[in-house]
């Protein structure tokens, strides 16, 4: 017995202390936020050269540092600094020249010809030429490259033969001079410049070879470069200034450094102590504190909504094979309640497109919370529900597939409450993230689940093509998780790709968007953005509408005085 029991007399005081500590610790923790650490030359707008920008993340670079493969947001931020593209997105999400000085469109939209800048030095000291672009494109789209974004480029002439291994080179990419590269498409595509701006086709150094290899030291033509030993997987990444960067005077920083696998709480403490320069992954509670503190509020940076969330309803499974049920769901969700989960990061979403590229016309027939309409849709579906007696509705419980991380763990419970009010009783089925993806992307895997999508480029096609077209349906790994198919919708999207007139394209997308809002394969719920906080000595840090992180124009003015203040009067 003695081996099992401990003396209560000895345990009791310890437990009392623990209880008191439990009560007192959090109360004692909330001492308010420290003051921001001011710069050495406050008020002087002249950019200063040098210094290291220190960042952190709770995650690791899962996607690696090769632009050819599909990347997570964290990797994408680093890739953007290391690899310049032929074109890029500006701060208004417009396509602008980058490594290419200009381009022209020929053959009725079937040929895009890019004219490279001369004298662009890559990280290995070589000069960028059209050959490098062709080699990089073929390397990225080769069938041996794992998890590539190749599906975006199936319209390139000769892609099928190349992807099948029947051709040694990609016929649709031709070198027309040392500094001229042309892309030939099988049919016109107005979205092609957006695709060229993606990370996938960004030129790599000759050391990358013509086939993907994970032993390669990443090397491109971006403002920062990776030196040997600069990346310790799971621990840190340090990128240093590329002295030969083609834009004069840039970058200002000597280096950008990430520490990985750092908890949000540790990030906040280190940021407050001046050991991190920008805090990007604060908890919602901490974000609220910074946003509410007038000393810090103006140092907050609200990023763009790049990710959309919605409740995906499998249109091949009951009860969501009934469009009236789906309409009822779309009308029953009170999106303002969702937003309260993380008010500084979420914005209510009433249509398929995030705020960055949304149709802002107030007459647009978006999905809105309308309880009476939701009940009416239930009646039309043949399953009337009486809220006063809690009778009627769909007779069986509906499995809602979810994983136990972040927002879905809570939003699913709000959804459950909202749908119970119209007679749809959800049963939450919690699975691992891997199981969630596997089930959600199968035709019979899940009746309902939370869908989310980060736009790859700032055009509606990045959402419509991947999430809602018939072509996006697959027996396994389907990105169209609602398994929604509408010939009219498919036709509109195909027409929009062919249409070179932006105003006509907008009209086509508007109709497509309206179809989605009405037929509701998803009940759109919220858009998501980060809320960053910077120290005052960090300048030039602005949110980018596409890239998860853009610090190419950032400069720091960190002085010893600021450090001493931060550390309580002296360096420790």
């Amino acid at each position, binding site marked *: *017995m*003695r081996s*099992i*029991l*401990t*003396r*209560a*007399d000895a*345990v*009791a005081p310890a*437990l009392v202390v*623990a*209880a008191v500590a*439990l*009560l007192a610790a*959090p*109360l004692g*923790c*909330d001492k308010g936020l420290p003051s921001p650490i001011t710069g050495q030359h406050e008020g002087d707008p002249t950019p200063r050269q040098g210094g290291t920008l220190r960042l952190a993340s709770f995650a690791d670079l899962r996607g690696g540092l090769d632009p050819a493969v599909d990347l997570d947001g964290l990797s994408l931020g680093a890739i953007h600094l290391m690899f310049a593209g032929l074109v890029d997105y500006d701060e208004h999400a417009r396509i602008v020249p980058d490594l290419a000085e200009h381009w022209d469109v020929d053959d009725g939209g079937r040929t895009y010809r890019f004219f490279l800048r001369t004298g662009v030095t890559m990280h290995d000291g070589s000069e960028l030429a059209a050959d490098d672009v062709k080699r990089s494109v073929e390397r990225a789209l080769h069938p041996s490259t794992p998890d590539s974004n190749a599906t975006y480029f199936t319209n390139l002439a000769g892609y099928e033969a190349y992807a099948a291994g029947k051709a040694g080179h990609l016929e649709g990419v031709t070198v027309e001079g040392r500094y001229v590269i042309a892309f030939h498409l099988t049919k016109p595509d107005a979205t092609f410049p957006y695709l060229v701006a993606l990370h996938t086709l960004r030129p790599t150094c000759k050391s990358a070879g013509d086939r993907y290899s994970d032993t390669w030291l990443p090397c491109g033509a971006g403002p920062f470069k990776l030196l040997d030993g600069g990346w310790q997987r799971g621990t840190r990444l340090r990128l240093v200034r590329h002295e030969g960067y083609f834009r004069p005077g840039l970058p200002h920083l000597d280096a950008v450094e990430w520490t990985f696998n750092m908890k*949000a709480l540790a990030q906040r403490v280190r940021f407050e102590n001046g050991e991190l320069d920008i805090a990007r992954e604060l*908890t*919602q*509670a*901490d974000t*609220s*504190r910074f946003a*509410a503190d007038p000393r810090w509020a103006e140092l907050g940076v609200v990023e763009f909504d790049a990710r959309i969330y919605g409740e995906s309803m499998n249109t091949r499974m009951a009860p969501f094979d009934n469009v009236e049920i789906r309409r009822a769901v779309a009308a029953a969700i009170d999106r303002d*309640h969702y937003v*309260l*989960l993380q*008010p500084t990061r979420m914005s209510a979403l009433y249509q398929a497109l995030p705020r960055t590229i949304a149709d802002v016309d107030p007459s647009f027939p978006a999905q809105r919370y309308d309880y009476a309409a939701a009940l009416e849709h239930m009646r039309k579906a043949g399953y009337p529900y009486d809220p006063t007696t809690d009778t009627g509705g769909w007779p069986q419980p509906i499995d809602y597939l979810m994983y*136990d991380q972040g927002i879905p*763990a*809570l939003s*699913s*419970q*709000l959804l*459950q*409450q909202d749908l119970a009010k119209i007679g749809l009783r959800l049963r*939450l*089925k*919690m699975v*691992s993230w891997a199981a969630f993806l596997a089930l959600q992307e199968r035709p019979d895997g899940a009746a309902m689940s939370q869908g989310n999508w980060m736009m790859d480029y700032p055009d509606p096609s990045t959402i419509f093509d991947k999430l809602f077209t018939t072509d996006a349906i697959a027996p396994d790994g389907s990105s169209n998780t609602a398994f929604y198919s509408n010939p009219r919708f498919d036709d509109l999207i195909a027409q929009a790709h062919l249409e070179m007139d932006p105003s006509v394209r907008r009209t086509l997308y508007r109709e497509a968007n309206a179809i989605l809002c009405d037929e509701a394969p998803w009940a759109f719920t919220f858009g998501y953005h980060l809320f960053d906080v910077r120290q005052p000595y960090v300048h030039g840090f602005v949110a980018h509408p596409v890239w998860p992180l853009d610090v190419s124009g950032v400069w720091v003015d960190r002085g010893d005085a600021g450090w001493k203040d931060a550390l309580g009067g002296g360096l420790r």
Partner: protein
Amino acid sequence: MLDTRARARFTRNRSGVAGTVIVAALVVFALVGPLIASHGPLESDFLHGVASDDMPVGPSALFPFGADRIFRDVFARLAVAGRLSLLIAVSATLIASTIGAVVGIVAGYYEGKRFARIIDVDGILMRCVDVMLAFPFLLLVMAIGAALERTSAVTIFVILGVTGWLSIARVLRAKTMQVRSLEYVVASRALGQPAAWVMLKHVLPNVAGPLVVSATVLVAQMIVADSVLSYLGVGISPPTPTWGRMLFEGQDYLVTSPWLVVAPGLAILLAVWGFNMLGEGLRDALDPHEG
């Protein structure tokens, strides 16, 4: 179970009395709490539960323990979670005690004997216990929980029960080995009573004290195990409240909304403390020499 002298020893034991009071208070809270709460445990209140800064409101008359992240009443959820935690812990303990008692008494009774000169019942049972003890308890329970497609209160207490009996088996084996050599047990065997009858009639009543004490302490361990499972996401699925789950959901709000962590944390602490002290008191009352 407790004779007059044992009862007197128990009432003189401050730990035992304090443990009884704490456990009784928790049981009353779990039973009565949901009845007097102003909200249902699954019901969000966006009118009164949201503070001006869009955060959950703190403790107030309407929300005695504050509101949670989706603006539900922490008091109501804590009480309902208490029901569930106590139900799971007690049920799991009953299962574990039954299995542990059977294995322990049989092993102790046949210790040193071999059937047909080959089969060593005690050896087989105790090696099984050793093998199971080699698995970290929580890891084993988590693996089983994760393998199940859907977890309910029943699956949780069955999992905990069938994996949590090992210590009880060891304790009762040792106690049975003492009891089996007592004169009246030897006499009963000499009279030709079947072994099962001897174990049930003479051994079990004599090892009941240690069994009750072990079981009481095991309840505390089961409460912790249930909370850990919920905290790690392999317990009962939301929105059903559990103390571990509430702790998990509140941890990011430790600074701004400390009640989200303090309330379930304190509930777990008190429950474990209470059952441990109750077990201590029972041990001192039932077996003063050991104490």
